[in-house]
C-alpha cells in the first residue's frame, strides 16, 4: 500500500531556511533516514515545502473566487513537507515513521495517510466502471 506522510510545520519551519549548524545536522540526519528508506525499497518520493509566507490560498464561495496571501497564522496547520512510501501495512508505516529524526526538533508530529486504492472503492463501483476509460487527470498518482 502507498501512504503519504505529512510533516506539519513548526515556528522554526515557518521562519524559512536558516542554515544554522543545528539545521545542517538535522538535514544530514534526515538524509540518512531517507537513504535507509531507499535501501529498504520503501521510499517513493518526497519534497519539502517553503514556508506559508510564500503560499497562496484560493478561496471558493459559490461561483466567486478569492485569493489570500500567506503567511497563515497557525504554524501547526501548515504542511512543511511530505513523503510517499510504499509499505506492506500501516504497522510498517508507523515503525518507519518512528525512526524518522524528529522533524521539528522539539514537539512535532507527522501524519500518515493511506492512499485510496482500487480495493477500497471496488464495492462502490462495477467492474465496468473501474475499467472504463476516463478523461482528464483523474487516476494519476496511482489514485484509483
Amino acid at each position, binding site marked *: 500500500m502507498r501512504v503519504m506522510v505529512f510533516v506539519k510545520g513548526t515556528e522554526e519551519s515557518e521562519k524559512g531556511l536558516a542554515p544554522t549548524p543545528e539545521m545542517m545536522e538535522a538535514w544530514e540526519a534526515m538524509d540518512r533516514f531517507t*537513504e535507509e528508506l*531507499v*535501501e*529498504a*525499497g*520503501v*521510499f*517513493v*518520493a518526497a519534497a519539502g515545502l517553503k514556508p506559508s509566507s510564500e503560499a497562496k490560498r484560493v478561496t471558493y464561495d459559490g461561483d466567486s473566487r478569492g485569493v489570500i496571501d500567506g503567511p497563515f497564522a497557525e504554524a501547526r496547520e501548515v504542511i512543511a513537507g511530505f513523503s*510517499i512510501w*510504499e509499505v*506492506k*501495512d500501516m*504497522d*510498517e508505516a*508507523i*515503525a*518507519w515513521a*518512528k*525512526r524518522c529524526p524528529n522533524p521539528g526538533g522539539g514537539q512535532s508530529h507527522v501524519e500518515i495517510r493511506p492512499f485510496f486504492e*482500487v480495493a477500497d472503492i471496488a464495492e462502490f463501483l462495477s*467492474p*465496468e466502471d473501474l*475499467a*472504463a*476509460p*476516463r*478523461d*482528464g*487527470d*483523474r*487516476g*494519476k*498518482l*496511482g489514485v*484509483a
Partner: protein
Amino acid sequence: MTAGETHRAIEAVFRIERARLLAGLARMTRDIDRAEELAQDALVTALAEWPRTGVPANPGAWLMTAAKRRGIDAIRRAAMQARKQEEIARELDGAPDSVAKAIEAGMDDDLGDELLGLIFTACHPILSADARAALTLRVIGGLTTDEIARAFLSNEATIAQRIVRAKKTIGKAGLAFAVPRGRERAARLSSVLEVVYLIFNEGYAATAGEDLVRPGLCFEAQRLGRILAGLMPDDAEVLGLLALMEMQASRLQARIGPDGALLTLGEQDRARWDRLLIERGLAALARAEALDGEGTYVLQAALAACHARAPRYEDTDWRRIAGLYDRLARAMPSAVVELNRAVAHSMAFGPEAGLRLVDALADAAALRNYAPLPAARGDFLFRAGRFAEARAAFEAAAALTRNAREAAFLKARAEECG
C-alpha cells in the same frame, strides 16, 4: 497501547530488520536455516523485553546482538559437548573466544554489503531459476512459503521443498555469503537481475491461472529492484532494470479491460498510468544513461520510456523505438526481439520496412509456431494494401494461437481483408 498493538508494532520493526538480520547471521553461520532460527530467537527475546523497555533506539543492532549472543551460546554448547571427546578437546579449547572475536569484527562490516551478499547467494547460478526466485522472496522479501506458493500458483509443500533443497545446495557448496568481486561479479549480477525480472514478469504477465496480472509479485520485484539500486547506485544495469519495472508497473491498472482481457498500448487509457512510477522510472533511466549504460535492461527501459513519454498513442516516437530495437537486437539477439524490431520499423518507416525484416525471420525455428509472427505479417500486408496475402497470414495466426480471445480477434481481422 494494548498488548496486541505492542506485539504488532514489534513485529513491524522486526519485518523491517529481518533481511539485514538474516544477512548478517547467514554470513556468520554460513547456514540460512541456522540464521533464520537465530533471527526468530531474537524476535522472541524482543517480544519479551521491548514491552518493558520500549523499542531500542537502534532496533537492528539490538536484534543482531541478541541473535549473535544466542549464536555464540550455541557454539559454546557445541564446543562443551565436543570437549568430552578427548581427541578434539585441545583443538576446540579457546575456540569460543576466537569465534566471539570474529563476530565482533563481523559487526563492523558494512551491513549493506551483508545484505547484498545474501541476495547474491540466494540468486546463485548453482540454483535453478525457480529455486532462486522462491528463496529470494523468502529471505529478502520476507514472504511466507504459503504466500510464495499462492503467488506462483503452486502448493505450499512444493515451494517449501524447493526452498529446503536450495538451502542444502548452498550449504553443500560452502558458499560464503559474500558479494563477488572482479570478473565473477558481472556474471553473478546478471543472475540476480534475471531472478528479480522473472519475479516481476510472473506478476505482470501471469503465465498460468485465472488472473492475467498478479500485482503483488510485481510489487515485490520492484521493492527488490529498489533495494538493489540503493545498494548498487553506480551500476547502470541495476538502475536500468529498476527503471524498466517502474515504468511497466505504471501501466498495471490500465492494462486490464472491462472484460478482464489485456489491453494493448494503443488501447490503454493513458490517464490511468501511474505518473509517480513513470517519474521514478525516468529518473532511474536518466541515472543509468549518465553512467553510459548500454546493457539490455537499460535499452528495454529506454523503450518503455518512449511509451511513457508519449501523451497519446499517436505521439509515440517510433523512429527512436526502431533505433533502440536495432541496438537491443545486437545486445540480445533473439527472434522475439527481431519480431518487435520489425513491428517498430513498420511503424516508423512503413509496412514494407516491416515486411522486409519479418520475411527474413520466417525461417527462424524459434518462431515456427509463434502466432504473433504471422499476425504482425498480416498487419504489414494489410497496411500495404495486399489484402489476399494479409487474409492468409491472419488465418494462419488464428490457427496457431491457443488464446480464444486472440483467435477471435485475428479471425475478425481476416474478415476485414474482404
